[in-house]
């Protein structure tokens, strides 16, 4: 195998991209941002990172089960968000 086959462009780009996103996320502790701005930066970078892993590295869309896999991932994500925000609503925000 030559270098180009060993290190395919997509993987290298995905890796560089994930490092850049990490550096951007780190910016929230380096620069003095408001809580709201910081959280928006973190939400955007974290979900973009997850997307890079899912599509570039986990090959989520390559087989004939693409539809089932994406449905499953979106459903799990829905459950996760309902669990987290539902908990926050009932345990924290509901009392403020």
């Amino acid at each position, binding site marked *: 195998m030559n270098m180009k086959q060993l*290190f395919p462009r997509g993987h290298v780009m995905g890796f560089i991209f994930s490092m850049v996103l990490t550096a951007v996320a780190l910016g929230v502790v380096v620069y003095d941002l408001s809580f709201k701005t910081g959280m928006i930066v973190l939400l955007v970078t974290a979900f973009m990172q997850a997307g890079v892993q899912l599509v570039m*590295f*986990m090959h989520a869309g390559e087989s004939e089960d693409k539809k089932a896999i994406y449905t499953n991932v979106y459903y799990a994500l829905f459950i996760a968000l309902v669990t987290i925000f539902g908990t926050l609503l009932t345990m924290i925000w509901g009392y403020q």
Partner: protein
Amino acid sequence: MKIDNSLPLEYSTEENRLKILGFWIFLGAEIALFATLFATYFTLVNRTGNGPIGADIFEVTPVLIETILLLTSSFTIGLGINAMRHGSKNAMMVFFIITLALGAGFLGTEIFEFKHYVHIGAGLQVSAFTSILLTLLGTHGAHVTLGLFWGLFIVLQVKKRGLTPETTNKAFIYSLYWHFLDVVWIFIFSFVYLKGMM
């Protein structure tokens, strides 16, 4: 067994394809597991009692080392699967062994970090915050520990049996697990450490 040669080896039989789909469904359950831990963390993050708050105990350097080690290991296992698809067993083995070494480095740093927390008075029983913090981090760490042994057995099996529809399928599923742990870590890095230090 019907083998479809137009697909990568790990997808080449119906059983293989279904095992990969099944593992994705398992990962969906893992997402739900970590969601409950994150939900509990966000609920208890301010319940610090007489113990420290996050900003008192979090340090950027070890966390950044852990993040870079895990992100790089996710990259190298991706390269390992790519090498596997090109049929290069040796390149695949090298990338898998690098991945395991980086994973061990991550775990070593995390164990050092836990020891440090206990040492500075942020052990498991100190407050609701330290309990859920160490439970969340520990659950991820336990997954990485399991992943290291799993990966080791994959490497040994590929060494012994070569690249077959079975071993490539196992290696691919293992790579899904490893990437998933990286995704969970990204959320811990962002919403536990960075948010806590902000």
